[in-house]
């Protein structure tokens, strides 16, 4: 754990966002993760992304479960709301919070253990319910907090620090999300913020469930030779298929692009995501093609990164399905929230 406190001093010419805040204003507490942890880079990318979107810190909700990854919500946007739930149960809490107040922006940060082992059922149903949130999986293939056992995302043949090879087949979060019908699926790498920051921005703006699987090397237990999730291995085998660029509303008209090169995904607030295909046969709009493409690449040992699949206007969003009230519950008068004894009695009578 770092013994030095980060000085409050900042570079005097740091750019300011629409709210007049600098990136430093979106920082959180000092990280207690290992030095060099990929998660810290993702924290920095989230900080940058949220700053770039000019989100008000008090309009952001950070949710997490248990694990190294789940600690990271404490390390960004200290002015946001936060809930650190029990192991694997973050999706339920996110669903509940979102049901009560959908005027806020939700970001859940979880790991491969929290989401693909103990919380796999929770994750699957959050995707099915299409909860409007960004769900970031910080994926390192090991249980770092319990000293490096293989997790559910460990590739077949990858070696542990002691040299044992993994034999069980992995759960790939991107394939899982695609098969469950997620409207936004992306993959990134903690060591490539240029790609990751726009993905996070696009995910936060996506009007439905957005999943980003971020390869995030565990510097202590999974950064050795023979590991398929080390910095060196990931750098050699990550394969950017689509380059995404988030364009804020103010700039959407100013930026010019050549037709055919870029694919524009307009977002409901006037901003847009511009995709540049690096692979010609790749089509982000076609779920089946996206699935088979990344599946085939995985078989070759390549991780396809970038925006894998996005549905422009997803249906069956949580609130649409449940026909909930437009206003957040905390803004409703007590009389509306509590219909009273008589109404309750009438309701109960229907079940007799």
């Amino acid at each position, binding site marked *: 754990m770092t013994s*030095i406190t980060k*000085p*409050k001093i900042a570079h005097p010419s*740091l750019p300011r966002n629409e709210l007049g805040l600098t990136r430093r204003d979106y920082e959180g507490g000092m990280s207690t993760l290992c*030095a*060099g942890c990929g998660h*810290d*880079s993702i924290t920095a990318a989230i900080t940058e992304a949220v700053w770039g979107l000019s989100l008000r810190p008090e309009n952001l909700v950070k949710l997490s479960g248990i694990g190294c990854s789940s600690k990271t919500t404490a390390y960004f946007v200290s002015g946001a709301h936060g809930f650190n739930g029990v192991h694997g149960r973050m999706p339920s809490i996110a669903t509940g919070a979102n049901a009560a107040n959908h005027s806020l922006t939700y970001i859940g940060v979880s790991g491969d253990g929290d989401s693909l082992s103990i919380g796999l059922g929770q994750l699957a149903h959050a995707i099915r319910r299409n909860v409007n949130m960004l769900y970031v999986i910080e994926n390192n293939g090991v249980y770092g907090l319990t000293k490096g056992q293989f997790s559910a995302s460990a590739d077949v043949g990858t070696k542990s620090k002691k040299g044992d090879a993994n034999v069980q087949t992995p759960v790939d979060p991107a394939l899982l999300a695609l098969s469950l019908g997620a409207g936004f699926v992306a993959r990134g790498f903690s*060591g490539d913020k240029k790609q990751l920051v726009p993905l996070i921005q696009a995910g936060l703006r996506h009007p439905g469930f957005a999943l980003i699987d971020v390869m995030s090397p565990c510097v202590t237990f999974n950064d050795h030779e023979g590991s398929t999730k080390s*910095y060196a291995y990931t750098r050699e085998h990550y394969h950017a298929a689509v380059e995404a660029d988030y364009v804020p509303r103010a700039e959407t008209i100013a930026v010019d692009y050549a037709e055919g090169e870029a694919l524009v995904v307009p977002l409901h607030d006037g901003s847009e995501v511009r995709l540049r295909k690096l692979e010609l046969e790749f089509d982000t709009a076609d779920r089946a093609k996206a699935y088979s493409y990344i599946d085939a690449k995985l078989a070759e040992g390549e991780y396809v990164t970038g925006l894998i699949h996005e549905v422009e206007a997803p249906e069956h969003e949580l609130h649409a399905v449940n026909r909930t009230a437009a206003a957040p519950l905390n803004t409703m008068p007590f009389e509306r929230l509590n219909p009273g004894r008589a109404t309750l009695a009438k309701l109960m009578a229907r079940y007799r």
Partner: protein
Amino acid sequence: MEPTDTRQPDYYHRVVDCQWACPAHTDVPEYIRLIAQGRFGDAYLSNRASNVFPGILGRVCDRPCEPACRRGRVEDKPVAICRLKRVAADHREDVADRLPTPPAIKNGKRIACIGAGPASLTVANDLLPLGYAVTIFEQWGLSGGLMRSNIPAFRLPADVLDEEIGYILGMGADLRLETPVTSLKALLHDGGFDAVFVGSGAPKAKDLRVPGRDDSERIHSGIDWLQSVAFGHVKKIGERVLIIGVGNTAMDCCRSSLRLGAKQVSVMARKSREFFKASEWELEDAESEGVRIVVNHSPKSFVIEDGKLTGMRFDVLEYDLVDGQIVAERKVESVVVPCDDVILAIGQENAFPWIERDVGIEFDKWQVPKIDPVTFQSTRPQVFFGGDAALGPKNIIWAVEHGHQAAISIHRFCNGLAVQDRPARGVTLSSRKMGIHEWSYKNDYNPAERRLVPHVALAERFRQIKIEVELGFSPEQTALEVQRCLNCDIQTVFTAPLCIECDACIDICPVDCLTMTANGTEAELSANTKAPRRDPDRPLYVSAPLKQTGRVMLKDEDLCVHCGLCAERCPTAAWDMQKSTVHIPHASTDGIPCEPQATRQSA
């Protein structure tokens, strides 16, 4: 860009802005740490090794280090480096037995120093421990040169001067007071000296030739008047005094006038404040004592009535400025300012009436001797110059540095070595890592603001001219001020082959000075830095290509606060915090082998 060669001693030296800016390259962060540890004697000696007069300079130095201080870039005010130097000097234990000592048997060479000011004293300080016999000729009855005659005692008490000059005289310098050198030719011919060092200063005041200049006794030349005050020849002045000029000499003149009975003192400046030569703090001190500073007044004539000075006529001017430069001036009106005395403090120059023009020393058209700016040798190889005598009026710390360089030259000259070959600077690095999350320097950023030095109450300080106005820092102030130093000499040292490109250092850096990017030209790299590069003149570190992607690590040294977080968050110790020690050569470290000494038997 090519990877930065950090073995070049100047790279890490430049990062230590204060030390780089100091003409004598005082190791500022080192002595501030020693003060923080309460090791005042050690701090004093660390200072003395480079600037020779810590007690004096801790009071009256021109402080080129402070405008350079990194703290002044990341915050408003720099560290009070100069006043911390005074703390080291004021609180040191007896260091007499730790000073350099002259050898019992001399090397047989004799050196003459002309003038007993800071330049000559530095030459003596550097050469005496090497076995030279040094004779100092001083025309007045006291040593110290300008430090004693032109700096009033309320800024620099005599006992501080006596003690620090005493250290040098104590090494066996032969100081001959009231012995002016009237002929260099005679000295060279009859003196029997192996080398002569001219450190006679810039003793000639510039004059203001306007009507009435010669018609009154009450028009004084600033440096001569200050000298008369210092030596006790002048004890009072009229009630209304005008000072012409606005340099540091003018500040000393106005404040001295207040102490000799003046009630109304005005400093008359030709231009506006941004063009003043006086240091900002000297202006503040003068104004706090009630001195009026009048801008845009150009002196035209002295008003003499019945043979008595009654005032001075000025043109009031108006200037047009473009980018801080005067492009046009206009006279607005003509005014007479009444006064009893006028002190002229418009500059000074060196003068050498005692150097015959046929001794082999070439002079330029302004009658200034031609001096090599590196070796300080004149065109007569045996004669060296330093201080204000060499390159015109500067300040004490420059005179000290000239003295050091001249001493190196004299030492080489007397050993038959080429004077142009200068001993090289060096740098050593040593890691400050003690263990996991443990560093042997204090790296917590203390957001404290600059402390203000307490002053003697206004009423009290005019009672007597010798009362020192500044009291020096209290222990509490010192304890806080030392924490403001950013330890710029604890360098961030990068080992490219160890880097796994995890971004941890870049993410944590509070001032965004690190970047990983594809290599390119300096312009391309500068355009890609994480935070804008503010000053292209500040060093930009470029690493060797990194192992995994071939990108390079960039570090813009401009704003780094040396907090050590990059090294703390680095999983592979590719970043390390290492203390740099810059080795500044002096005559004593030149490494010239000792000549076989003449023993009593062989002699």
